């Protein structure tokens, strides 16, 4: 396999050309995903079982693809065409296939997770060194802590406090975070907190979980147990001045901007997870009922068609993000609709596989529970509906289709 040099030497997360290497990447992902079904079942029974599967290539992917190229260390374990510091388009390709294998295993895998987008957006070189040298140690988990018990993920309303440390050198972090993936097992993380009133008073700080005052517990979940969703408490955790991300930037371009960047970058991932599981549920039905015909077959085909349309939209929004011209409204729409599709697919599968299908098909029962999480991950459906509405008000929701040559384009202009 030869590959354009631009791929291997890329250190930015700009768009890369599709071609032979993306086909190879997709083939690799498809094969790697197969390895995840049995571990996913084990994780559903015991979320800490991820330690038994750290040798799997698919489990290495998250760390490698979300780590800047200069810190990535998995060159010998993964094919050369698996990019470090992946673009959004590359990562959603991986996310969809990995979730097709098992979404819980994907979220359980070590790596920098969402925090990588905050670091990319805000950190200086020293801060990147501090964070990524730690997350490059294998296995190391990291967390991204925005959501709070009483405020959800409303970034502008968070209440965790960042107060000046006694003596004036550094800061003290106090507050609680809720529904934080891998929070209780992470070595480091990024925490959003309030230094002063108003949107520019929000900061993003890097936390070492070994520091005094950090407390975490894993929450028992109905599904997606591999994510090891946690509650975090910060009882006066000392934050050295150099761990305030973007400290070299103006206050208007620090904490809040990092949160928005991370959510924007990862919302397509959640959509990709949802599409992957939705497609897996449809394929599972067809594997189990190869003679399925009539209305049942039409329902499955209809869902697969929906999935294809959403995938096209997903790749469009990811390309816009990589090109530096994201449309947040379209991202919201795709994420919300993909989450609905995953839920519809698992419910349809349960129905088509007959009475007691959730008993007879443990994998189906697992994803039936897992997909419920996609609805609220990176913002609930209602938040995204509001986002789409805002896009409509600004006449900035619909994708321009100037290059389409389908019949009827000539009359579209009369609308």
């Amino acid at each position, binding site marked *: 396999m030869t590959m354009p040099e631009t791929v291997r030497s890329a250190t930015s997360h700009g768009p890369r050309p599709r071609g032979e290497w993306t086909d190879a990447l997709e083939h690799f992902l498809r094969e790697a995903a197969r390895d995840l079904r049995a571990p996913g079942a084990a994780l559903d029974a015991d979320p800490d079982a991820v330690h038994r599967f750290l040798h799997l290539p698919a489990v290495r992917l998250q760390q490698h693809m979300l780590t800047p190229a200069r810190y990535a260390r998995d060159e010998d374990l993964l094919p050369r065409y698996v990019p470090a510091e992946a673009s959004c388009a590359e990562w959603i390709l991986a996310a969809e296939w990995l979730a097709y294998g098992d979404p819980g295993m994907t979220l359980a895998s070590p790596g920098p997770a969402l925090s990588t987008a905050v670091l990319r957006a805000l950190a200086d070189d020293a801060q990147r060194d501090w964070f990524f040298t730690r997350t490059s140690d294998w296995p190391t988990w990291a967390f991204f802590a925005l959501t709070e018990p009483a405020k959800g993920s409303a970034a502008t309303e968070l209440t965790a406090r960042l107060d000046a440390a006694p003596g004036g050198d550094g800061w003290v972090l106090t507050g609680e975070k809720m529904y934080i993936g891998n929070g209780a097992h992470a070595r480091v993380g990024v925490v959003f907190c309030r230094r002063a009133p108003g949107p520019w008073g929000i900061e993003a700080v890097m936390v070492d979980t070994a520091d005094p005052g950090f407390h975490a517990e894993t*929450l*028992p979940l*109905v599904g997606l147990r591999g994510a090891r969703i946690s509650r975090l408490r910060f009882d006066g955790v000392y934050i050295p001045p150099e761990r305030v991300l973007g400290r070299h930037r103006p206050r208007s371009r620090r904490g809040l901007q990092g949160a928005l960047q991370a959510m924007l970058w990862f919302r397509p991932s959640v959509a990709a997870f949802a599409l992957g599981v939705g497609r897996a549920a449809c394929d599972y039905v067809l594997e189990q009922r190869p003679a399925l015909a009539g209305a049942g077959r039409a329902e499955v085909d209809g869902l697969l068609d929906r999935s294809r349309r959403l995938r096209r939209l997903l790749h469009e929004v990811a390309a816009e993000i990589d090109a530096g011209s994201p449309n947040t409204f379209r991202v919201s729409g795709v994420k919300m609709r993909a989450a609905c599709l995953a839920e519809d697919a698992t419910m349809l599968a349960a129905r088509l596989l007959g009475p007691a299908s959730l008993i007879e098909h443990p994998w189906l029962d697992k994803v039936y529970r897992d997909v419920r999480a996609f609805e609220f991950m990176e913002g609930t459906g*209602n938040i995204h509906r509001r986002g789409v509405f805002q896009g409509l008000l600004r006449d900035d929701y619909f994708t321009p289709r100037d290059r389409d040559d389908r019949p009827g384009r000539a009359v579209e202009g009369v609308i």
Partner: protein
Amino acid sequence: MTAGGPGDYPALLDALHADIAPGRFVASPSGRVLASAEALGAAGAGRFTRFGLACVPAPTGSARDDVTAGRFAEGLLTLQHTVLRRTLTHTIARLGERVSEGTSLLARPQLQADLADVAMELQEDAAEPAEEAGRDVRWARHARLTRTGRVLLRLLGGYSMLAEGPGADLYLAEVAGNVYLQPEPGDRLRPETGDDDA
């Protein structure tokens, strides 16, 4: 396991078994029994035991006749309705405690509309005639209640995924429907969205 709040679905299911077939369990059409792990003596590593539930081949002596099965199926729907009513109350209370942009989340029109839709669906469901219904009617009713429950789960956000919260009860109600109420694929079915089909 006691009844009275989130997490008590297994206890409520046991009470239903005891009410419909005292001293026995009611078997599903596929020959299974779903009840609390405690009542079935199935405590262990079963898939549902972390929710307090177990599903086993129907023990000897389980009720299998059509009349008992029909009454149990009706009871399951009543139970699902009851859990939904309780979750609706819980959801209103929880959203009422949350303040965003200076006002209660309950002031948001979208959330008000969703909650009203749930209430209207439950009100309509309660008006279901009391006479014995066929399996297809019961399945359609279960499917409507399931969709109603999913609306509440969406409103509850991340809280709905907690194993000790109302989300687990709604999930178990869906599993019970899957085991006891779902018809065989060849059975004649009413459209699940029958409300608009008159």
